[in-house]
């Protein structure tokens, strides 16, 4: 085991950091005591976790568990977000105390932000639910300052960490024997799987039986976010991603297997299988859209129509009573036909790209999308069922065996819908493969070249017209494939599943995840579908928040969560681009600001 590793930059700068910005004076004042402050903050967070949080039991039941618990009665009995706070606080103390840890200020800052947000979310929630500040301070003889102490602790931690001066993210260059790295990757992916399952099932399914599901979920997200930020600051995440890049094929296979194992975790319920299948449908469609928008740079605002075309074709070939064509073809054949038909429409919709560029093209695609919705609504040719939709589409299956059934293998009972889940995981994997293969080929490079500079691309001998239409065609084919699955899984295909807002949602998924990247579309689709499921309390504000989120993402993180290396700077303000300023020379390692 060779650990030839050293952080690239010294842990702490010798000179006292000089701060700029609004809090400069405060930070400068705090700088000499940064370590002390970090430890004090961590301790306060710990203490806060053990203090009572609420002065009385809320209507719907105690929140948090042992809400009015007194000092250290049961140190190992803390659960939920208080446990998270304990972990964050302890981690902050340990890291702050160990001066040898590189980038410790940056790590502690991540932990502190996590603790702050957890305390803030839960404190606010209790205040709002409990009907005023009395709920988290003192009321009728009882006191509960847990949230306030934890919040102060978190803030002090962040202050201490920021004052100490944020180091560069260290770069680790460990290489381990291949089999150690393989084991490491397997373990890490399994942990990710368990975390995903934990996030999905946190707080229960919600609804009247689990009235606190929304806030438990948000709080868990904040805690995980803090931990993630800390890990990222330590440079370990970068190292892990380098390791997984070294064993690319292995990682992909393990990831696929891990995804297929989700039904075995706590998230293996019929409900989450259905949600996951829907996410899969939109992820596959979003990857198709990613070819058009992310690679070829052609904005398509009517893209969901291809999903719809695929779904309607599949519905009509499914043998459903309401379908116009009374034949029932095998599912594999139906998928191919749906995909081909959608692809043909894709080529038609894409054909104006020969003459129209930019914004105008976006409008043309929007117009096509609207024409599709209107025609489907009017039951064009009797093919869409109009407002009556095409219901009762039979499940995929062979003979008596249906994909919608639950599966019993020995003593293991998997929920119904699990087979659809397996199917969509494989489908999404296949679509990802298509995307990756195309992106790294002559065709993919031509698309990117067209996106970057169409005239220069054509001067390089790229026949831009056919290549652009090909982007639409292939993208639409992928959406059509997803549509065929969608029709059978949902069992109903109605025109109103394919409205303009759905196109915008798909686009948002692509942008949120990161344009042009493979995991981006999947991540974006997951977020856009899981969040509304988990936060049904806010369902009235769902679209309002969605709209605002689009605005804010464009303003503050237009490159998305997983930015494409190529596009990183393209959607951001050129001034912020640090690599360009540092210039080339020895390839600069990216440094977090």
């Amino acid at each position, binding site marked *: 085991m060779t650990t030839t590793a050293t952080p690239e930059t010294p842990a702490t700068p010798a000179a006292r950091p000089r701060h700029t910005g609004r809090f400069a004076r405060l930070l400068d004042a705090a700088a000499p005591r940064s370590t002390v402050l970090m430890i004090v903050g961590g301790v306060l967070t710990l203490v806060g976790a053990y203090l009572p949080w609420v002065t009385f039991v809320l209507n719907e039941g105690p929140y948090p568990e042992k809400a009015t618990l007194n000092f250290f009665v049961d140190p190992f009995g803390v659960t939920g977000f208080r446990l998270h706070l304990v972990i964050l606080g302890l981690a902050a103390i340990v890291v702050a105390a160990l001066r040898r840890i590189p980038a410790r200020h940056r790590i502690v800052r991540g932990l502190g932000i996590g603790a702050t947000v957890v305390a803030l979310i839960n404190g606010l929630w209790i205040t709002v639910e409990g009907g005023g500040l009395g709920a988290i301070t003192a009321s009728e003889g009882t006191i509960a300052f847990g949230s306030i102490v934890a919040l102060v602790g978190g803030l002090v931690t962040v202050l201490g960490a920021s004052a100490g001066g944020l180091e560069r993210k260290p770069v680790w260059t460990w290489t381990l024997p291949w089999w150690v790295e393989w084991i490491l990757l397997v373990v890490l992916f399994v942990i990710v799987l368990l975390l995903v399952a934990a996030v999905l099932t946190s707080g229960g399914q919600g609804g009247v*039986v689990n009235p606190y599901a929304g806030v438990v979920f948000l709080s868990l997200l904040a805690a995980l976010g803090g931990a993630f930020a800390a890990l990222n600051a330590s440079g370990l995440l970068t190292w892990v991603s380098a390791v997984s890049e070294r064993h690319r094929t292995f990682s992909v296979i393990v990831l696929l297997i891990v995804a297929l194992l989700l039904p075995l975790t706590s998230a293996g319920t019929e*409900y989450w299988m259905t949600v996951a299948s829907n996410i899969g449908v939109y992820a596959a469609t979003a990857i198709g859209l990613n070819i058009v928008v992310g690679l070829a740079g052609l904005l398509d605002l009517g893209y969901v129509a291809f999903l719809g075309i695929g779904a309607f074709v599949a519905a009509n070939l499914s043998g459903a009573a309401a379908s116009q064509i009374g034949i029932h073809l095998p599912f594999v054949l139906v998928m191919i036909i749906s995909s081909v038909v959608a692809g043909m429409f894709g080529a038609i919709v894409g054909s104006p790209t020969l003459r129209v560029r930019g914004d105008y093209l976006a409008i043309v695609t929007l117009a096509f999308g609207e024409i599709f919705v209107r025609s489907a609504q009017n039951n064009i040719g009797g093919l869409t069922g109009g407002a009556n939709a095409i219901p009762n589409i039979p499940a995929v299956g062979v003979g008596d065996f249906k994909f919608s059934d639950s599966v019993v293998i020995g003593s293991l009972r998997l929920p119904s819908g699990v087979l659809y889940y397996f199917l969509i995981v494989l489908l999404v994997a296949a679509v990802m493969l298509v995307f990756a293969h195309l992106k790294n080929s002559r065709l993919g490079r031509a698309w990117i070249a067209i996106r970057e500079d169409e005239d220069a691309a054509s001067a390089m001998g790229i026949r831009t017209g056919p290549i652009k239409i090909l982007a639409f065609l292939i993208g639409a084919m992928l959406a059509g494939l997803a549509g065929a699955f969608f029709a059978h899984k949902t069992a109903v295909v109605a025109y109103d599943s394919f409205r303009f807002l759905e196109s915008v949602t798909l686009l948002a998924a692509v942008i949120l995840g990161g344009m042009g990247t493979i995991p981006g579309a999947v991540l974006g689709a997951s977020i856009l579908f899981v969040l509304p499921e988990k936060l049904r309390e806010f369902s009235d504000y769902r679209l309002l928040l969605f709209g605002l989120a689009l605005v804010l993402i464009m303003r503050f993180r237009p490159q998305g969560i997983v930015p494409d290396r190529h596009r990183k700077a393209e959607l951001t303000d050129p001034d912020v681009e640090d690599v360009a300023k540092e210039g080339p020379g020895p390839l600069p390692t990216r440094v977090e600001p």
Partner: protein
Amino acid sequence: MSRTRKVAATAALLAGALALTACSTNREEATGGGGGSCDTSKGTLVVGFIAPLSGSLSALGLGMKNSTDLAVNQANQNCTVPGYRLALQAEDDQATAQIAGQAATKLASDPNVVGVIGTLNSSTAQSAAPILANKKIVEISPANTNPALTQGDNYQSAPSRPNATYFRTATTDAIQGPFAAQYMVQKAGKKNIAVIDDGKTYGAGLASQFATEAEKLGATVVAREKVGEKDTDFSGVIAKIRPTNPDAVYYGGEYPVAGPLSKQLADAGLNIPLMGGDGIVDKTYVSLGGREGDLATNVGAPPEQLPSAKAFIDAYAAAGYSEPFSAYGALTYDAANVLIQGVAKAVGNGTFSDATRDGLISAVQATNLQGATGAISFDQYGDTTNKVLTVYSVQGGEFKPLETGTYPAS
């Protein structure tokens, strides 16, 4: 500079949020929510609910949700289900079949859900009903009117019930449409009728059933047009039907379109009555432009003649919901009560478990209840046997009952 502002804005937001909630503490049990003095030792049973709670149809959906909530609260106060507290879990289907399926799955995977009230749209029901039926969960819809939901795709030739757990308190298009046609042609003596619908399951179904019966009775359907559910300008349609000289217009759809349509008919010089189904019976219809003399059919006998309906309306008003109960309020209230009564009967003094579900289905099937819309029981398909319908007419700015009858006329 900008950060100062951001901090200030955040602070203001937080202060506002706290101020909003600072009015009262939430310490005491809310009235009605907790079951009052009833014994709730056996736990909580969940009444599921699926309808659009956001988007353009949310007005109807929220009215349905409130009506269900009312029934649940009343049951909790009256200790209708001994030993249990009932709780309403409302899911938003966004009027999309796919989301409705997801909501149904969510409810179906909760063992405490005794039944589901909803959906509003027939298309969403087509997605939700099979999922619920698979888990033997009763679904009672107050608003689905597509005949295929209870009698299968071949409802005209060979009716067969697709989902044994699906019931509805709404009459199907197959009853309401012809009933309206009988009145229009035979009583009101209209012979040239223009038929317009909004293309949705409810409206298009109703309009086509109406048109078929009207032609059978000897009237001429002089025009058959569609409008969009979100349209507001109907001048094109009106100019198109004008030369056909209709003496009445039948509209299949809901009041947000029907009201302005009626007004614009008159504006264009067509002073002929507009008739519609239960979807237009709402006071907003008149404020949106519905005229004196416009006609509508509604399910059940007029509430004025039914004490139970009056009781519902009063109780709804007293509960202080922020949205009106809208077109399907009374039917929803009845549906919820059917479910609750069924649960009470099936559970008895025992406990609720999956084994109780068969008993619950038969209890609902055997319902015999005097509801807000009249007597409620179900036929072998799960359709309501309450085929009493009433014709209303706008008089003095509101819908007044003209006559009550059944279809087929008996």
